[in-house]
């Protein structure tokens, strides 16, 4: 049979339409036993393809279709050497295109817009491909097969044993010409579509890629219709045609039966036979396993290769020349001594045990590399299972003592485990990028690449892209989206014909890869050249990434290090810094927040808004219900709150509160005594599988892993069967097995290992401690880092509830970030909407410093508005922001805000004029206006002149809403007409009305949608009024009714019954009504829009609107 050597999947980005799985599936069903994937100028789909082939028992062939303006060469890897050659070639081509800002998948010059830089870059990439391929063809053994149907290429490049003339079934008309070139022919089916109709999908994808409408994409940019699976598959019709080729099983060219060409090729019989044989040879010789063993980062490579060798070597620079195991051992012992003071036998024993395994498995370098990286940041938090390691603790990767908290190393590394270790580290969110950059610099750019994300079309994005390709304006698309959000079926049913087309196409591209993004923090460091292992390219934001996503690089054996961003680390850092500025120093070495009684009590009350990981409404409710706040329980709580475990939470609370319980099985009683017999941590699944069903530890690990995968379906079924069989064999009663399996299923989706939860709980305690003892500094840090779970508005309300005073931004008093001191928080200048970074920088420079300005001798405060205007450059829009936010009120000296704004605007104009005539002003206009001042005009307004008025409280609050995103001195509800005046209960008094039907006014601060056991959507909503926040539940019936009103957020009237459970209070919503929105400042004149009766709309249809 002829193996399809030319196929395109959707990983020919924005061109291909089939997923590799679909291709493999089709090939398997057609009876092929080998299949190549040759995407255009890329290998993005390779790992997925290999996986799919493995599953269907097909022999994968690894290739790339190198396409340029001159034609194409399909390259097929024969050896690993050849494969590396391909990855290097793709990386080199990508580099050329990236330089011009084009993505690596670009094939065509952008239509319609003649961008010289782009077309030059593309031409350069084409040339590069040509030259490299020609050079490869000339090599004695390049490790590659080159198949080309480009007449120019074949004509120019001399014959070579590796170069073939490609007779593709999709381009039969070219065969004669190709055969004449004198190169050996190879015959291959070509597959781009499963059915010819998919060509329209391809047209759409191309239009999206090119940024044009579908009608503008010419047919020549698409694959020919003959590249459909039907043509390729015609081989099944073997016997029907007389043309028999070679001695193989004769069907090879039977596709001709369906192509109406057979008679025309009779004379080519012998050539075609030869071509078919070539196909067979290539199939046999091609490389099918491109991936090998793990590739670890090398510590030596890091230490030895660059100028920062000193910093990379352990501590004192004595590292040069010593081996990794020695260095690691030394660092571990030193660190342990620092952590524990002395080295008790238990610690020593544990260290030896861990070091032994790490060394045995060759992971020393990996640890040392991570150690080098974390040295770059002040504050980090190890996450994942690595937190169970005493070596991590000793190196400072984590802050949790694994011995004290019973964390077991085996979950992280054990002798039987086959996959590489995985150390994930959190950094402050605003430092992470610089850490990553520093890491790349330290290890050398050619050794490093970030892990990519394959951004796939999701329905919404697909709809938007499709709509654009059909020329729909975004506004209309947004309206449709809202309708879909509300009621998808109704929206689809009522759409007109054009939108119906858009919908159906959007659904067809949903799930296909769209472009390359950057994985949140994964980085690959290899000893050699990264491009030898994986094609690399730059994303739109200029970051060098691998062509494969995190699963792909894992398949390829490339060991990644995850460096992730975490806002709470920045919160803790900033709060401590703020304390330092206020003259308060913490002894961080002796800081034991988890032992602090006040902190524990505060956590137990659920007073944890802003506190890392335990601030969500669900978590706070759980805290309130359990009433415990110690470290051990917090570890349990942060693990038990997970999507699928709701029903075990109630049971847990009751058991915690002393309900008698019987273990499902005696074995479990022992295993889970510390979590009251409830499986809580991810590793519990493995434990139970080993203990109850007699799984080996690697099988047990596998079942744990399957649960976290998205496409767990059928694989899980297999494990379930094995689990049931194993348990039954161990004499476990069927109902117990059922119950245990149910509990195991509660781990699907995501779940945490204990070590991870413990590491996070430590950070929770650090931030909780700060909240308990230094609320102003803490909340200031939360606000500056844009918190986590809630909006600025919600945090500001919480701060007010905590008794803190919120001071408006001030050009002299404020730092860029919010700062707390005593009982007040001073708003940061950086938190004002609409101010550019450069303006802020200029401001800080002009006054001589950011923080604690008053104390500094170089501090030059702004003494007046004129002074400010003279020293800080700003735009007209920024002037509005400065004035609107109130940042200039303190230097206004009795001038009203309008007068201040006018002064700033004048300064803007004056500056622009000095910057040179003609830049912003045109001379004629200036002169035209010149006679204005000479025509005296009395002030007519009864509204008062701009210089005198005093801005009202309400107006100040409204402009704070606009420029700061929240009000400062009052609750935003007070700006909503009628909200606080209506008869209602205040939220703070809810606990006195349990069981009653009440009405409240509330500002929606967060909402979480969940599915009931019957898969019906319902929602947990958190509101707040001026006294407190309150939790509500919207059950499915109410959800259907009120959901549309909720979409836009804002203020609501909430009515419902007050319920209490374990001391936590919720309101079950019976009715919900949206209150009017807060008026915008520009609307305050209470005037209708300029069109008055509305006869002039935005749409310029009627001439009326032109006037």
């Amino acid at each position, binding site marked *: 049979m002829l193996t399809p050597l030319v196929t395109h999947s959707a990983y020919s980005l924005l061109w291909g339409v089939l997923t590799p799985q679909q291709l493999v599936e089709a090939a398997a069903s057609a009876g092929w036993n080998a299949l190549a994937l040759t995407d255009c100028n890329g290998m993005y789909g390779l790992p997925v393809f290999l996986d799919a082939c493995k599953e269907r028992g097909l022999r994968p062939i690894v290739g790339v279709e190198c396409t340029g303006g001159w034609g194409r060469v399909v390259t097929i890897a024969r050896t690993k050497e050849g494969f590396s050659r391909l990855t290097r070639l793709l990386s080199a081509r990508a580099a050329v295109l990236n330089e011009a800002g084009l993505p690596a998948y670009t094939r065509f010059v952008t239509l319609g817009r003649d961008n010289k830089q782009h077309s030059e870059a593309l031409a350069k990439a084409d040339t590069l491909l040509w030259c490299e391929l020609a050079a490869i063809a000339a090599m004695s053994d390049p490790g590659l097969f080159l198949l080309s149907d480009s007449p120019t290429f074949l004509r120019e490049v001399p014959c070579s044993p590796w170069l073939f003339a490609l007779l593709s079934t999709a381009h039969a008309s070219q065969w004669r010409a190709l055969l004449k070139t004198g190169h050996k022919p190879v015959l291959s089916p070509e597959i781009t579509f499963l059915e010819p109709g998919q060509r329209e999908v391809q047209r759409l994808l191309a239009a999206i890629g090119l940024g044009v409408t579908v009608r503008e994409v010419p047919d020549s940019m698409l694959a020919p219709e003959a590249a459909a699976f039907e043509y390729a598959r015609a081989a099944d019709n073997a016997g029907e045609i007389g043309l028999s080729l070679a001695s193989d099983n004769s069907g090879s060219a039977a596709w001709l039966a369906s192509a109406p060409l057979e008679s025309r090729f009779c004379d080519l019989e012998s050539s075609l036979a030869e071509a078919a044989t070539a196909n067979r040879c290539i199939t046999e010789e091609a490389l099918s396993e491109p991936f090998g063993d793990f590739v670890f980062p090398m510590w030596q490579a890091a230490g030895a290769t660059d100028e920062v060798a000193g910093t990379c070597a352990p501590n004192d620079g004595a590292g040069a020349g010593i081996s990794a195991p020695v260095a690691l051992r030394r660092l571990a012992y030193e660190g342990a001594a620092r952590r524990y003071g002395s080295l008790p036998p238990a610690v020593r024993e544990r260290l030896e045990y861990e070091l032994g395994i790490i060394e045995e498995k060759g992971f020393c370098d990996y640890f040392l590399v991570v150690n080098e990286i974390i040295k770059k940041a002040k504050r980090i938090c190890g996450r994942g299972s690595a937190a169970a390691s005493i070596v991590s603790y000793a190196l400072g990767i984590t802050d949790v003592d694994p011995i004290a908290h019973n964390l077991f190393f085996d979950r992280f590394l054990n002798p039987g485990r086959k996959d590489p270790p995985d150390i994930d580290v959190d950094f402050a969110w605003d430092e992470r990028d610089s850490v990553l950059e520093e890491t790349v610099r330290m290890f050398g750019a050619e050794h490093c690449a970030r892990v990519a994300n394959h951004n796939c079309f999701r329905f919404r994005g697909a709809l938007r892209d499709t709509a654009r390709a059909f020329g729909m304006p975004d506004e209309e698309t947004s309206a449709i989206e809202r309708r879909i959000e509300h009621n998808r079926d109704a929206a689809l049913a009522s759409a007109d014909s054009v939108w119906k087309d858009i919908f159906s196409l959007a659904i067809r591209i949903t799930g296909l890869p769209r472009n390359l993004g950057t994985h949140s923090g994964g980085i690959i460091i290899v000893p050699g050249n990264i491009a030898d292992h994986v094609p690399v390219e730059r994303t739109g934001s200029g970051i060098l990434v691998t062509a494969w996503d995190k699963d792909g690089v894992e398949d390829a054996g490339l060991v990644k290090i995850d460096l992730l961003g975490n806002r709470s680390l920045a919160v803790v850092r900033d709060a401590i810094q703020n304390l330092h500025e206020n003259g308060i120093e913490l002894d961080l070495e002796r800081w034991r927040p988890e032992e602090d009684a006040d902190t524990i009590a505060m956590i137990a009350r659920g007073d944890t808004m802003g506190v890392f990981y335990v601030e969500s409404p669900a978590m706070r409710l759980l805290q309130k219900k359990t009433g415990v706040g110690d470290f051990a329980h917090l570890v349990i709580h942060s693990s038990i709150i997970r999507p699928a475990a709701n029903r075990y939470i109630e049971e847990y609370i009751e058991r915690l509160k002393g309900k008698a319980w019987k273990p499902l099985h005696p074995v479990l009683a022992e295993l889970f005594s510390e979590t009251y017999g409830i499986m809580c941590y991810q590793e519990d699944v493995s434990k139970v599988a080993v203990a109850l069903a007699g799984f080996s530890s690697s099988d047990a690990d596998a079942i744990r892993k399957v649960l976290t995968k998205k496409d767990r379906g059928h694989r899980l079924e297999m494990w379930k069967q094995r689990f049931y069989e194993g348990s039954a064999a161990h004499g476990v009663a069927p109902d117990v097995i059922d119950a245990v399996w149910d509990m195991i299923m509660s781990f699907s989706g995501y779940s945490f290992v204990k070590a991870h939860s413990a590491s996070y709980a430590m950070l929770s305690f650090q931030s909780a401690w700060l909240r308990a003892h230094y609320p102003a500094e803490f909340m200031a840090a939360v606000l500056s880092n844009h918190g986590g779970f809630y909006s600025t508005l919600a945090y500001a309300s919480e701060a007010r509830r905590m008794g803190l005073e919120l001071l408006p931004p001030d050009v002299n008093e404020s730092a860029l970030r919010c700062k707390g001191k005593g009982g007040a928080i001073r708003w940061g200048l950086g938190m004002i909407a609409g101010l550019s970074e450069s303006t802020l920088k200029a401001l800080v420079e002009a006054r001589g410093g950011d923080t604690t300005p008053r104390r500094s001798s170089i501090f030059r405060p702004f003494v007046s508005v004129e002074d400010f205007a003279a020293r800080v450059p700003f735009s007209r829009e920024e002037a509005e922001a400065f004035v609107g936010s109130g940042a200039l009120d303190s230097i206004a000296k009795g001038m009203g805000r309008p007068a201040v704004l006018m002064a700033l605007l004048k300064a803007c104009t004056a500056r622009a004029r000095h910057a040179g005539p003609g830049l912003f002003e045109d001379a004629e206009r200036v002169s035209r206006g010149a006679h204005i001042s000479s025509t005296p005009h009395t002030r007519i307004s*009864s509204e008062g002149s701009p210089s005198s008025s005093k801005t009202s409280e309400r107006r100040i609050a409204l402009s704070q809403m606009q420029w700061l995103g929240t009000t400062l001195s009052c609750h935003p509800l007070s700006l909503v007409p009628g909200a606080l005046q209506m008869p209602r209960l205040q939220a703070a008094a809810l606990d006195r009305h349990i069981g009653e039907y009440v009405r409240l006014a509330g500002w929606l601060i967060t909402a979480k949608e969940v599915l009931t056991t019957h898969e019906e959507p319902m929602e947990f909503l958190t509101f707040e009024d001026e006294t407190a926040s309150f939790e509500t539940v919207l059950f499915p019936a109410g959800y259907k009714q009120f959901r549309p009103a909720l979409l836009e957020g804002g203020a609501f009237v909430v009515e419902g019954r007050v319920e209490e459970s374990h001391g936590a209070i919720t309101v079950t919503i019976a009715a919900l009504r949206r209150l009017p929105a807060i008026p915008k400042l520009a609307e305050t004149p*209470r*005037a*209708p829009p300029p069109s*008055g009766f509305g006869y002039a709309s935005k749409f310029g249809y009627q001439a009326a609107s032109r006037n």
Partner: protein
Amino acid sequence: MNDEGLYVGIVTRAKNTGVARPEAWLAECGWDEWHAGRGKREETLNSAGAAQALCVRLPRWVRGFGAAKPGATNLRQTLKAVRNAVEADVRAGRVMFLLAEFPHSFTYSVGNRLWLDRVLGELEGLPLVVGFWSAEWYTSRLIEGLKQRNVALCLYDAPRLPGLPPAVEVLTADRVYARFLSRNGAAWKNGQFGHVLDYRYTKKELANIVPRLLMWRRKAEAVGMVFANGRWAAESAALMNRLLSAHVEAQLPKGGGP
């Protein structure tokens, strides 16, 4: 004149209550007068065979009047009293308009605007007409506000003099109310202030207005026009009535019209 909803009338004054002429369909009388005659009103008016529709004119600058209910202590009570007093007559179709006219001293200040808002709010649902003598009130804000509240803006036919309202016409409600004061601008200029309202509209002048009135009739449910040109009021009203009748008849498909 048999076009329903089109009312022509004159201003009656306490001193010449009996002036209501048979031709006049609409009478505008002051609040005190109307209030005083409440008990006997029916017979007086009907016996005179005169006004079948009435415009009750609230005292100028309502703010200062407490006559509606002796002992009323605040605005709300006062306006409630007004509402109570007229509501039945409004429902019965006897009071067609409730005119609140504000003198020149009622300026366009924030306080006055808020106060007006309250007055209009309290009297919501009544066939209100507001008239302003201060030109300051003629703003888009006021007009849009009146539209929202379905309150008519009184239209004036008055000399073009400073201190008198501008002669603009606009439809803000489902009713229109126009007052014909005079066109005697010359008297003012000559210092004969007493004669400003002493003006005899010519037939031509009134005939010019007829199409506009009929147009308003098409757009609104009730159109009232009263003549306040002093001693000529009754004559002008009668003349206008005739003109209108002629016009309406001319348009009736009786066959053989002019």
